[in-house]
């Protein structure tokens, strides 16, 4: 899937198709304290890399950090005009109405945007941040990175971008984005399609996810036990 030498004009073509942002980052505000630096640095560094292609926008809903904002229509419009949705998954993602709506919009729009011959393709790039998360079928069906992907960076520092593998990780994400952009840029989209997309984006409601075997998003957990401390020299 990864393309190391993407066509140099794929971002230009994406803009010609009518997209305004290459990436929309969907993340729950509940993790704003613990993962804000990760989200902001990722957006910044991806935009940095896109400069090689003449520049591309990464849409990050910074307003979400503010209390009580009313920005929904603008948010929906921006998501509609974004090519790819990066999803940062924690348990609270599925409890957030905003996040579930963002998922529903991307899911509802992607079929008309991807080439018909790319059956396994998706406009989602999901990253699981928490360990032992129960994922809905919709996430499990598509390619996603599990918690190991970001865990060493998150535990290392308040600023995950200080980790020495940050550059590699951003490069990996960048390559996956470019591969999807390349696919999307092959589909010509008349303006009527965009009008239809915008109507859909403005009206869409939150996604009702399908959970494996259990109806509730949060599975019942076994009795919590204290993490054990091991005596000197032994391994956990």
């Amino acid at each position, binding site marked *: 899937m990864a393309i190391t030498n993407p066509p140099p004009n794929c971002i230009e073509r994406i803009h010609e198709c009518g997209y305004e942002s290459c990436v929309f980052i969907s993340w729950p505000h509940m993790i704003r304290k613990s993962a804000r630096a990760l989200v902001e640095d990722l957006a910044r560094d991806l935009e940095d890399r896109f400069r090689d292609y003449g520049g591309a926008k990464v849409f990050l809903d910074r307003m979400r950090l503010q209390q009580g904002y009313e920005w929904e229509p603008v948010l929906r419009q921006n998501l509609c005009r974004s090519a790819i949705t990066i999803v940062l998954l*924690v348990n609270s993602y599925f409890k957030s109405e905003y996040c579930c709506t963002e998922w529903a919009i991307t899911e509802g729009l992607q079929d008309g945007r991807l080439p018909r011959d790319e059956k396994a393709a998706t406009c989602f790039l999901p990253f699981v941040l928490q*360990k032992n998360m129960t994922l809905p079928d919709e996430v499990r069906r598509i390619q996603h990175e599990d918690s190991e992907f970001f865990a060493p960076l*998150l535990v290392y520092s308040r600023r995950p971008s200080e980790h020495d593998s940050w550059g590699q990780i951003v490069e990996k994400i960048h390559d996956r984005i470019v591969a999807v952009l390349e696919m999307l840029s092959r589909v010509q989209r008349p303006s009527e399609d965009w009008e239809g997309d915008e109507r859909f984006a403005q009206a869409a409601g939150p996604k009702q996810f399908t959970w494996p075997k259990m109806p509730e998003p949060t599975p019942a957990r076994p009795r919590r*036990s204290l*993490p054990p*401390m*091991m005596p000197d020299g032994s391994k*956990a």
Partner: protein
Amino acid sequence: MTAERSGQVITFYSYKGGVGRSMALANVAALLAQRGNKVLAVDFDFEAPGLHRYFLSEGSKFERYKPKNGALPGTIDFFYDLREHLSRLSKEAGGPVGLPVRAAVLREMLDAGRYRYQIQLWNPNRKPGTTVTVDFMAAGRFDADYTERVRQFDWSGFYAEHGEILPLLAEELGRHYDYILVDSRTGVTDIGSICTMVLPEKLVLVFAPNVQSLNGALEVGRQAVIQRMASEDLRPLPLFPLLSRVEEGEEKQKQKWVEDAQARFQTLFREVYALRVCDLSTYFNIVRIPHRSFYAYGERIAAEERPTEETGSLSSHFLRFIECLDCDNPNEAQHVLERQQEEAEREIVRKLSDEGELQRLIQQHEDRPEPRMFLAQLLASQGRQIEALRTFQEIASRFSDDTEKQEWVARALFAQGVTLAQLRRPEEALSVYQDVIRRFGDATEPALREPIARALFNQGLALDQLGRPEEALSVYQDTGQPGSHTGRAWPAGGGAVGLSGRDSTLWRCHRTRFARAGCRCSEWNRLPSSLSGQRTASAL
């Protein structure tokens, strides 16, 4: 409560006791408070509580912690009350209550302030008598029931039932304080798990230079990070090793020990944080707490007694540690060094431009000419030439017999001449320059050659000012020819300066003659380029 903060919980853990963990915490708390932070110190070492001993009223001017009469409830009592509150709420609601309700309970309990003392500590880094405040939660109320209360609290059961409350507690405390410092139980215990793995955002591993202390710290650090990665908690958990009780002397052994500990922590960091490269040499060079026998007797906070600027003091070592602790990770200790250098430079500049500070330095270092010299220059730059002149004279006379300070005497004399010239007293200035040349003209030390060259040049200027250009020219001729004056070499640029002076005087001489002859400006332009160049003009 005050404005919302974004504080962090930092746990101090040691695998073995007696390594100076509580002392480190008390000093760090004092220093952080001295730097304007809001700090809470919490004693979680229920079985062997000791942090309160650093905050006792006894021997202090202030009302501090009183273990007997009117003691407040402490950490263990807080958890008893919290458990009771939560259980009651759950019973009333017929099941577990939501996080917002639990957060509200916590907030209410913390806002009530009934578990914490406000401890006033001296701040020796400010003017005498300045104090700062550290909030403190003792392990508990040390009454007859204390031991029983500690023994009966089931931490495992509490965690199973109310585990979510602990990250909430960390968050809630973080709203009130910049730093929440947790003094953890040693060894391997349930409460140790909570302190090292569940509560903190940073974990300080205090260890003494012995294998069991180091091994225990490494292992607990490793487990804490792995546990954090396996949990739902997305907060980071950087480890900050703190080598304590380092004996002075035995340099070879000490160095070997530090290198070994550094290598083992680097291996640990590479493993748990999946780092390709990890170099903690800067951190280990900066951070180590020496053993000071003075502080080995009783519980005293060094940071309350000695200023951090006192080189080699225990508080200066703790200061270096908290500067590293301010970083997101020990790997960033390099930034601390850079910051320290910048601050040191700023401090020098500040001191050199502060008259009071310079007066203090003069008193402290009576046998050194430098502070007087800096003061005189500061006075001159402020337009206080008379005072500057007096100070330059004082330097010249005070150190005139000291053979090692002759450079400063020459500099002071030269500066005296410059100041006299600024005061429009050219005859006196000329006499001082001539004095410099007479006294030091034969000196061979490079440091003395510079003031002599300057004196010669300024002598020329003074002669010129006094309307004696021919004499000035002769002085410049002497200065302008490298090695001409008593056959000694001038410092770099000295000859060029002399030539420049000669050129400008020549030019002035020519101009005077041309002017006398009624010469027009166009004729001046036919002067040799070396005499009419821009440099010569600007020298004039």
